[in-house]
């Protein structure tokens, strides 16, 4: 109210209301709209073109992999070749097994921790929070050699189980941290109601909170799945022999210093990327709130 009489505003007012029609709040001039759309179009094109080009290339015969024509000789040969003549399916199976098992174990044992850290204040909680945060930023380089020696002495090199153990080092701290973020968003009154009705803490957790946190559990699970799906360093170091590789390692064998089978590479890349992208589309909305909420509320 007082702003109307503010001399500064009055000085500015004429300049902003000069156009014939006063624009409403949040309305743009046509020029601004065009600039906005052009900017977003350029950005979107940059984002979409590489995956699109991958898709297009996968339908070209290998010999034509680098032709700039869009679809000259449309063919499914690459897909056929990848599925029937290479070890692709066993890589896919290895990846599914390793990452699936890791996700299930990781989410399962992390959920209670997330709940405890979110609800109770207990001695050792702060160190635990720090531990979870710091283990998340462990570089591959610290753990890879000891883990390699450890797996070698246990005879687990080249075994999917060995990779599961390795991936748990990535999944557990991350899942616990994410789950804490989700439990934080569930009102604590629900716990209190459960406690009043005579449930012990475990009962509260299991009967009230877990059902409510199902979406959170799912998102955490999916995200750790996607993370493991795309892991490269451990997989390249621990798995050798063509039939033992996971996808990240296997795809490297198509294009290296000796061969460049871009047709097989692109086809298998498409098969790998499509399910991941679809799942991602479902969970991404909850993802960032989980990541940042988990990190901001400690």
């Amino acid at each position, binding site marked *: 109210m007082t*702003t109307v009489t*503010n001399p500064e*505003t009055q000085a*500015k*007012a004429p300049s902003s209301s000069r156009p014939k029609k006063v624009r409403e709040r949040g309305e743009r001039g046509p020029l601004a709209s065009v600039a906005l759309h052009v*900017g*977003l179009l350029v950005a*979107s094109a940059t*984002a979409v073109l*590489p995956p699109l*080009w991958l898709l297009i290339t996968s339908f070209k015969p290998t010999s034509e*992999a*680098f032709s700039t024509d869009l679809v000259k000789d449309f063919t499914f040969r690459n897909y056929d070749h990848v599925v029937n003549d290479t070890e692709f399916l066993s890589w896919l199976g290895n990846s599914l097994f390793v990452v699936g098992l890791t996700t299930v174990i990781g989410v399962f044992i992390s959920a209670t*921790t997330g709940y405890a*850290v*979110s609800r*109770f*204040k*207990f*001695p050792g*909680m702060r160190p635990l929070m720090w531990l979870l945060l710091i*283990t998340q930023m*462990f*570089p*591959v*380089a*610290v*753990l*890879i*050699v*000891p883990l390699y*020696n*450890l797996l070698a002495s246990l005879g687990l090199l080249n075994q999917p189980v060995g990779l599961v*153990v390795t991936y*748990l*080092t990535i999944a557990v701290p991350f899942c*616990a941290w994410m789950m804490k973020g989700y439990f*934080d*968003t569930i*009102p604590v*009154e629900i716990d209190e109601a459960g406690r009043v009705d005579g449930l012990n*803490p*475990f009962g509260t957790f299991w009967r009230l909170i877990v059902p409510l946190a199902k979406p959170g559990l799912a998102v955490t699970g999916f995200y750790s799945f996607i993370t493991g*799906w795309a892991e*490269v360093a451990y997989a390249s*170091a621990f798995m050798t022999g063509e039939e033992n590789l996971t996808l990240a390692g296997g*795809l*490297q064998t198509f294009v290296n210093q000796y061969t460049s089978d871009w047709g097989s590479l*692109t086809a298998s890349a498409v098969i790998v*990327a499509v399910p991941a*992208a679809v799942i*991602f*589309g479902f969970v*991404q909305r909850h*993802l*960032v709130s989980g990541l*940042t909420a988990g*990190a*901001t*509320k400690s």
Partner: protein
Amino acid sequence: MAVDSSQSLAKAAGAQGARGRGPRTGKTPGRLRRSLSTHWYAWAMVAPVVAVIGVIIGYPLVRGLYLSTTDANEANVERTIGVNHIPATYKSVGLDNYTAVLSDGIFWDRLTWTIIWTVSCVAISFTLGLVLANMLNRKLAGRSLYRMALILPWAVPAFVSVFTWRLLFNEKNGILNKILAGGGIDAIPWLNDPTWAKLSVITVNVWLGVPFMLVAMLGGLQSIPGELYEAAEMDGANAWQRFRHITLPGLRTVSSTVILISGIWTFNMFPVIFLLTRGGPGDATEILVTYAYRLSFVVSPRDFAGSAAWGVIILLLLSLFAVVYRRALRKQGEVW
């Protein structure tokens, strides 16, 4: 909403904590028993994760620390060849590995490049994410389409994207060079010239990193109350002033978290470098993590001890970064 619940939560937790911490003056056995009876379920709940972290992260970490003070390499670690079991013969060398690493020019070269890489990747993708989020955060035709398109690079598994970029960057036949040739420009050795390779890996990582920034920033923008903008407009603030004095402060919490997280991610970004250039040409694009990997798995004989020393140094650098960053934020009144 979320903030509300967390506050009530903090209060509840605080009350509980006060109850638990109350009898500090009591005798030790009584105190221990009481805190055990108050907290046993909390401890039971965290036990599985503590056990897992202790066994599969703690043990290798301690072992890594130990290895970094020895001269372990491929030839003298414990190993089994066929039926023959060969015991370990490496011995302790104290801190020699560390002095060797730190007095070696390679380490400082790699560190410089790693810092350039991290800072430029985070800065560029943060700026782009912020700009795009601001462009998207308004009434706009086709908004959800733009959003989906812009998030796509995050949805595709990173190693797939990296292979795609190798296809695009291919020096003789890649589409980028073909387009340039169409414009009469000579082919650019995207991945084969040290400088171009550095620019290329940064480009790819920015491309991969923008969607995360964008989504985080959008979330942050939507949590800024619209009334603030209305009030500012009433007071005659122009678009830039509104951005500078409402949007940026409103995004502080989320951006500080996001910068910390993505700083750590980028510092450790193994797949992009490893799959795009293998650290090459030469070691031009090798960051600390990939170099440590090269020491233990690529060079011959594999230098386990050296690699472990690099790993420990990387971990110390990251912890230092996290602590300093948190301090700096706290000094400015940020609490998390």
